[in-house]
């Protein structure tokens, strides 16, 4: 029972972070149909920038997170404007290639600036253990869960209540009709990239807090793909449910089976889902209008 509770907390907290990273991915896909292969590197950059601002620049962690959020917003907007906007109307494969290239460039950039040595993340969340149903679980994991929940609620409110949030969903629904209502589709694309950056910073920081700062973070970021394939590329709810499912699946496999199977099982799930339910659990089967 104790093991089960521990694994569940580990799985859910990892899954929550994955959900956040996947949310950024889904935002970009939904609004502009771009598949962003660099989402994992966005996590990495978020984690490193916060690390550099707290440990090297000795700023308070809250200031550092704010700084990293600004960096992420700027990065997202620059990528959208300089790299993706010129590609509008180009075949989807070109866009995919460009974001794969982008992921390599960003990964290399982080290596050049910060090297390969893993760094310990400054403790800003208590790392003590708490007793939960007879099991010892890390407080930082519960914090991660709670913070992600807050972030997801904030996103949900943004999408249903704010003018720009509704405009984003309108663009995702019918781009030309949104244009006809005076909604600036370009601004919405930029906003999607900026928000993807923000969700990646928060996810990257929470992840670094659990596993330290190293290139491993972008590897974890790759798990975004099984998550979005499982949940559905264009579903926000799917990102959350997919994140939780993949997190739990990995944790249980690691705990009960082990032997490295936990690192492949998400991708096995990915292939299976593609075979049986290619649009994922919550994805829309696109109906083309003619």
């Amino acid at each position, binding site marked *: 029972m104790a093991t089960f509770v521990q694994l569940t907390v580990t799985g859910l907290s990892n899954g929550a972070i994955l959900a956040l990273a996947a949310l950024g991915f889904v935002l970009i896909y939904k609004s502009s149909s771009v598949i962003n292969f660099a989402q994992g590197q966005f996590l990495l950059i978020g984690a490193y920038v916060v690390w550099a601002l707290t440990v090297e620049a000795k700023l308070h962690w809250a200031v550092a997170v704010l700084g990293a959020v600004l960096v992420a917003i700027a990065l997202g907007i620059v990528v959208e404007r300089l790299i993706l906007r010129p590609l509008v109307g180009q075949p989807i494969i070109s866009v995919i290639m460009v974001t794969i290239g982008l992921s390599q460039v960003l990964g290399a950039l982080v290596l050049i600036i910060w090297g390969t040595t893993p760094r310990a993340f400054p403790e800003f969340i208590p790392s003590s253990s708490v007793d939960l149903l007879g099991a010892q679980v890390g407080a930082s994991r519960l914090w991660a869960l709670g913070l992600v929940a807050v972030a997801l609620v904030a996103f949900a409110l943004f999408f249903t209540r704010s003018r720009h949030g509704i405009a984003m969903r309108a663009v995702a629904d019918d781009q030309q*009709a949104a244009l006809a*209502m005076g909604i600036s589709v370009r601004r919405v694309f930029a906003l999607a990239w900026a928000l993807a950056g923000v969700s990646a910073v928060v996810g990257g920081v929470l992840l670094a807090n659990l596993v330290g700062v190293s290139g491993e973070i972008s590897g974890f970021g790759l798990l975004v793909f099984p998550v979005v394939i499982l949940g559905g590329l264009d579903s926000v709810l799917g990102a959350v449910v997919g994140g939780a499912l993949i997190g739990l699946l990995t944790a249980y496999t690691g705990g009960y089976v082990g032997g490295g199977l936990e690192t492949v099982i998400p991708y096995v799930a990915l292939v299976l889902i593609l075979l049986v339910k290619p649009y994922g659990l919550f994805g829309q089967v696109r109906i083309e209008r003619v």
Partner: protein
Amino acid sequence: MAGEDERGAGSAAAAPAPDPAAGALLALNNVEVIYDEVILVLRGLSLHVGEGEVVALLGSNGAGKSTTLKAISGLLPSENGEITDGEIAYAGRRIDHLDAAGIVRLGICQVMEGRRVFEHLTVEENLRAGAYTRRGDGLLADDLELVFGYFPPLAGRRRADAGYLSGGEQQMLAMGRALIARPKLLMLDEPSLGLAPKLVAEIFGIIRRLNEELGTTILVVEQNARLALEIADRAYVMENGRIVLDGPAAELAQNPDVQEFYLGLTETGERKSYRDVKHYKRRKRWL
């Protein structure tokens, strides 16, 4: 303003006859539109809409009616179309170089063919999206009431996803979504498409009321020529990317060609039998 003066001066020099488009709210002058850099669709189209008028634009399938509206509302770039010649002026100002958002802000709003509601957004969210170009949320509550006043069936479905509405309700939502942007010029592309006759009559009644009660200027593209001519002050008939006929709606309704081709009437004013009109069926979807 400078553009208006220049145009006025130019036409005065060329032809002393008074320019009917002078002072119009909207004026298209010799507009040419090309899609995909090769497909010529509008071939020197000119029309104007005066402030407070209801103007109908009629024509067979593929004549370029929707293209005309998209040229005005700035939607052509989203379909790889381009205005290659001529000019479009609104309230005396050239607007053919503006983007769609800029044009909506000037007070022009288009309800596109096929309704195009945001299916995954609720009715209220659709309306909020329509109010995007307006700020000041205090106004929004009043505006929602205004829309529900004109389209009562929407009031009871505020929280329903627009995708689940009936065709008629969706048409009302598409119009309400445009109305909430409080346009001075409302352009409607085939509002009757796919609706039962009773609903069509209701929708056209509302269009007339929007014009009379709110003073909204209306340009309506319609397959149902009979209804369009009933509610319009003036009408244009287009063929092949050009205007071929125009005049007061009542006059056009009496024109033998219009009666024959667009209203399906014989010279004696009787409705033709299906056998007789079938001949035109291929060209005229609305017969």
